[in-house]
């Protein structure tokens, strides 16, 4: 059986890619995709721990299903915001928006 560490390293790897993506991507859609990566990294961890720590009722798996559902909802909201911002400023590049300044 594949040891637990492999899963954890995969999760951490995905998480780092996601963070890097969020921080460096200019395109807002790219940022949203990166956020999905971060969430999925967490999901991998949840499922892996569930298996290896031997919780019998599959709590981790249920939890990751919840995360997937909520992530879907969150990305809907995120996309709506992206569209709204795009309509307003004719740009999908995050560094061209500084609305959150005094």
């Amino acid at each position, binding site marked *: 059986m594949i040891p637990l560490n492999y899963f954890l390293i995969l999760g951490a790897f995905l998480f780092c890619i996601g963070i890097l993506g*969020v*921080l*460096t991507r200019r395109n807002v859609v790219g940022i949203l995709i990166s956020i999905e990566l971060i969430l999925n990294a967490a999901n991998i961890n949840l499922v892996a721990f569930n298996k290896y720590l031997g919780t019998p009722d599959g709590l981790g798996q249920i939890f990751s299903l919840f995360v997937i559902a909520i992530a879907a909802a969150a990305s809907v909201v995120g996309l709506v915001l992206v569209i709204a911002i795009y309509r307003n400023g004719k740009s999908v590049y*995050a*560094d061209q*928006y*500084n609305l*959150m*300044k*005094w």
Partner: protein
Amino acid sequence: MVSVAHLIPLFPFLAFAANILFGRRLKSASAIVSVLASSISLVLSLIVFKGLLDGECSYLLGKWLTINDVSINFGVNVDALSVMMLLVVTIVGTLIEVYSIGYMRGDPRYSRYFAYISLFMASMLGLVLADNFLMVYIFWEGVGLCSYLLIAFWFERPAAAKAGLKAFVTTRIGDTGFLLGIFLLFLATKTLYFSDLSHLVPVPQNEWMLTAAALLIFCGAMGKSAQFPLHVWLPDAMEGPTAVSALIHAATMVAAGVYLVARTYSLFVLNSFCLETVAVIGGISALMAATMATVNNDIKRVLAYSTISQLGLMMLGLGLGGYTAGTFHLMTHAFFKALLFLCAGSVIHAVHTQDIQKMGGLLPKMKVTGITFIIGTLALAGVPPFAGFWSKDEILLKAFQSGHVVLFGVAVLTSFLTAFYMARLIFLVLFGKPRSDLPAHESPKTMTVPLMVLAFFAAFVGLLGSPATHHAFQGFVYFGVAPEGETHASNGIMLLSTAIGLLGISLAYLLYMAGHKILPVSVRARFAPLYRLLLNKYYVDEIYEAVLVRPCLKLCEFSSTFDRLVVDGLVNGVAQVMQWVSATLRPIQTGMVQNYLLIQVLGVILFILTVAGKICFRF
């Protein structure tokens, strides 16, 4: 029917309310409102007088306030002294209001004037009727306020506004003493009622307190009655309308100081030092003001100095134990000095100048004013049988009997000077040839009728204290026990006072009338330094300016600078530091989401590293 006394101040107060609220609509009717209110007060005063003669006395109106076990009531004080004051104030006040109808005609603030006058009447009558110190103090400030408002009535003129301020501030100094005196007296005796003063028994523990209280209360009286060294405001107060000068600054309000001393006389007689202080201050004021009056050329200011001088004489009389003498002079003085001021007002109304050197020969053109002026002058100069003679005679007699040679001398000298400057005034104003082209004419009826009525009083009111009426006044207003029989064997004094009065008038005649045998100019040249000293009012104003006013202003300037530089500096400094800090920190807020997130991630990494480091080092 004494129990209507509390209504006396009410009517003028209602007139005040009506005039101040509906003055615009009342227009010239506001004068009628005021005069009517004062007349009602006059009638009520007469009723109260009748009641007092029938043996009724003070009564309680109601409870005012209670603090712990001290309760203060609205009491109405009806006794000989207060009824005398009531009559004086209402008679003189009503006449002056009638006079004002003519004098103030055409003034843009006509109804405002009558509102103030009515408020003054209400306060003054309240002051007279109050039976405890607290109420007296309230009304005391009320008359002070009205005085200020009326002196500065023509506030467009800077001099008038300044004079009002000066009067207010100067009397305020005295009033502060008065208030402290009330506190001290309450501390010593636990009472604020005048009626309790008469059976005060000084014990060694509170004796100094009572003395100090008496002196502090006298401070208040000094301020109001313009006694030295607080006399400086009264001559300047002549900037107000002349009718106001007559009512407030000659007949009634300035006499309130004398009234206060008389009212609290029991306090003063406890210690001979207090009485002597009163007498000495009175003597100094009397002589000082009389000398200043001899050189002044402003018709109203001469009368103002004369007022200070006469108030000084009253104080002198009171201080030497002449309770009756002082109050009697207060009464007669109110009539003839009001008359003199109104005459002066009538003259000013006609010729539009106050400089007596420019007047002259007005008698043929202004018969009524002229003749009443002469009556007033004779009354003030102490020529028998006019009012001033009898009352001044009483004071001289008291001074003589007291054995204070210096004060007696001061009183005699003051009487002489009084006769001199008053004679000088009428010789320069009424007689001789006109010295400049002045459009003199007689004043309207509303002004001359009060003059005639007042002249009647000025001529005959003194008889109340003469042998002709068996010294009715002395049997009515007295302190302690009633004087028994005819103790006024004062023929010598009468002769003396008549002689010095006539001497003063003759000297003035020689100087200003009799073909200029002695020229005033040469006298002036002979006594040049003295003349200059008198003309400059003993430099008292200048001394106050240098010693009090300027240091005060310096202090104010310093405070203002301190406030601007240090206090404001601190506040502004804090604000500036904040601005600098925020300006430095502001670039952090870029408005870019990814920057924020980066910082957040870095923070989390830092946090994790810290925790990891701790764990590593511990184990």
